[in-house]
């Protein structure tokens, strides 16, 4: 059987290569100090989808929700062999929390329609919540397995996966369609193919072209003409906005987000006092009671 996969990916600030102050004074992320990259775990999710396609056939569609320049990760997906990519881009999507994001993504997935497996990375390195994948599964009302390290077996109706847990693994069997969140240790993501880079380096999403023409008011980028040219060459990346996926403004972006960030601060743990304990029964008993009453043990 062939399997149709959808991979949900995110462009994130590269928190490993920080070039300046990573945070603004108000506690928000200073994106200009952080180069934007393909979220590392999402590359593992894409790799798992691509190798599944290589083994059984089928298609791999990739979706990202993000500002115009986030289309770069969609090109990166095309360079690695994705069949189709979709850019969810709309000002109304901005400042979405994980719930609004999951809702937006699930609406787009419903628009695509048929699929067998949805792959997500385990978590994104910016928010580190690991919530979007599970919430998408809930919205779609399909089973989910998080922390997947390997697909052990798959057939028409069911899938068996190896799931990473503390101190070991568990093997889980569930029904298709399913949503999997993939571990960074699951595989070695492939590098871009030179031929596909040469093919898709000029691919653009409508959101990107629009942003480009708005940013350079002086340049005479003709929006429709550019779109048609790209379409002719099969280089137009589809852009879907809230209307395309039938989403009300109140359900996405800041408006659709119940999460409220009150304050972000950097917590540093340090030892303040040192206590010496005698090596005898009573002293150790005393220490244990103290730790229990401080809720450190218990």
């Amino acid at each position: 059987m062939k399997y149709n996969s959808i991979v949900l990916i995110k462009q994130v600030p590269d928190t490993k290569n920080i070039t300046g102050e990573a945070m603004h004074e108000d506690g928000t992320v200073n994106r200009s100090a952080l180069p934007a990259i393909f979220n590392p775990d999402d590359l593992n999710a894409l790799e798992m989808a691509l190798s599944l396609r290589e083994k059984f056939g089928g298609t791999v569609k990739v979706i990202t929700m993000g500002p115009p320049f986030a289309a770069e990760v969609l090109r990166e997906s095309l360079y690695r062999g994705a069949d189709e990519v979709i850019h969810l881009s709309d000002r109304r999507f901005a400042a979405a929390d994980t719930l609004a994001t999951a809702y937006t993504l699930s609406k787009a997935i419903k628009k695509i329609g048929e699929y067998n497996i949805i792959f997500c990375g385990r978590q994104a390195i910016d928010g580190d919540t690991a919530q979007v994948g599970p919430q998408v599964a809930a919205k779609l009302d399909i089973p989910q397995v998080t922390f997947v390290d390997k697909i052990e077996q798959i057939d028409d109706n069911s899938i068996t996966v190896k799931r990473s847990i503390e101190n070991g693994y568990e093997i889980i069997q569930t029904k298709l369609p399913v949503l999997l969140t993939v571990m960074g240790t699951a595989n070695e993501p492939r590098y871009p193919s030179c031929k596909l880079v040469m093919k898709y380096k000029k691919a653009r999403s409508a959101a990107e072209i629009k942003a480009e023409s708005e940013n350079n008011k002086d340049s005479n980028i003709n929006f429709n003409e550019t779109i048609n040219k790209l379409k002719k060459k099969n280089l137009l990346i589809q852009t879907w906005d809230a209307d395309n996926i039938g989403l009300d403004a109140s359900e996405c972006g800041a408006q659709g987000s119940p999460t409220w960030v009150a304050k972000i601060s950097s917590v540093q743990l340090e030892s303040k006092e040192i206590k010496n304990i005698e090596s005898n029964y009573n002293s150790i008993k005393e220490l244990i009671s103290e730790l229990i009453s401080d809720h450190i043990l218990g």
Partner: protein
Amino acid sequence: MPNFFDDNEDIQFQFKNLDLDEIIRIREDNFKEKDNFYYASENVEDAKDNYRRAMSIAGQIAGDYVAPRAPEIDAEGSKLVDGKVIYAKGLQESLDMIKNSDLMGITIPRKYGGLNFPYIVSSIFIEIISRADASLMNIVGLQDIGETVYKFADDELKDKYLPLFSSGKITSAMALTEPDAGSDLQAVQLKAVYDEQSGCWRLNGVKRFITNGCGDILLVLARSEEGTTDARGLSLFLCENDDSMKIRRIENKLGIKASPTCELQFNNTTAHLVGKRKFGLIKYVMSMMNGARVGIAFQALGIAVAAYYEAIKYANEREQFGKKIIEFPAVYDILINMKVEIETTRSLVYRTVWVVDMLECLEKNLKSAENDDEKKILRKKIKNFDKLAATVTPLSKYYASEMSSRVTYDAIQIHGGTGYMKEFNVERHYRDARITSIYEGTSQLQVVAAIGGILSGVMNIEFDNFSSQEYDGDLKSLSDKMKKAYSKFQTAANYLKEKKNPEYTEFYARKMVDITIDVYISYLLLNEAKVSEHKKLLAEKFINERLPRISMNEEYIISGDESTIKNRDELLK
């Protein structure tokens, strides 16, 4: 790990500085493939952008994926199990990554699945990969084998095998050396007999020291003309690695341990003739060897680069006597010399591959030339470039490989006792570098290959061109010095020519070759200095340091001193 292409400013400089426009236009034949192949370039700038992007992918794979695996690849080596060669795990994984990124047929035309890039790009690839793992280069870097099939085999063989080469579905080997035919390939004995019944050739005999002899496709040099004993009785054959071919052993080597060096026995192995009979050694193998020699020069360079980065890192971290060791003149002197050696070698080898690319383009132009006048001019140009390529190729192979041994030696020196230990990469680089001045023709043979061209004035065209250019400001005084150096080159060359003593010439040939290289690199640097302040400093340092060496070598040559030749036996007692 860094990207081995993006992090190397000097490669970027060479890439920008070499004039590739004409090469690209001819190779792309007016970009006529742009409508037939989804990945074909549309114009010169697009092509350059594609080269850069492809090399950036190679640099990412090399830095990120291959280099971290290299110590383990080296420790594991290749193994022979039940007659089959097993690559080190990391080597096989690296090979698969490179294959998946379409980097196995860089110069092969698109209709056979390749990228149709010029040699300069495949050479950058070799440098980058060798910096990550020298032994991997022997399997992915020697793409000249496919190139040889493309240039000389008939259409049937090309259609069948070239797509396999460029997709990386197969690996290959060139089987030339035999137990009694090493440097002297004319002595090859492996027998090829035409089997009338099955309508194909059959190979019988033994090959030795065959790099990747376990490869799926082999190009084999064999004696097809019974009763002959020289080069004219040899032809080139293509065969598949099947059960009739036995891998008798693989060698246990000093370096490049993961590159399997095989001894092969052919037992009635089915083979196809490549090109015409009797042209095996004199034409096809010579062409293949020249390609391979350029490859080894870039491999040697890549290894040296790896060692240099290790050394500079260590010198910046290690503290002794209360400061970083890089602060000590004796230490930074070594490091600067290493850097100068690497950059100056790069100027030489990138120029060499540019010459090879130009030659290829001119030959292509000749094929499509329409009128006789045009053909006549092209033929003359080709003749000059052909001679130049045949001379600068051995010069590059000789110089880069010897440089690699010097630089890797110095990298260990910077590390002190630590560098002698297996835990540090420089130990591996030192071992890996050593083969480069031996295989594909020893340094001594490169000197033999180059000296004829040098003495017949092949280099003079290049030198005249450089010395007649205008150099302003600070470069003016350097160029005046170079005029003197050039005249010393001429004096030495004339002396050898007029002396007409073959043994004397052979004895002093290496010194003559050294003068040639010193003058050549000096001129290349002088030219680069026109556009780069960094290169200006480099040119000053190199020229001022090499001038005394040029004078010294010239003095030796024109001394007429034959005492060492005469007293050989006594001195060796």
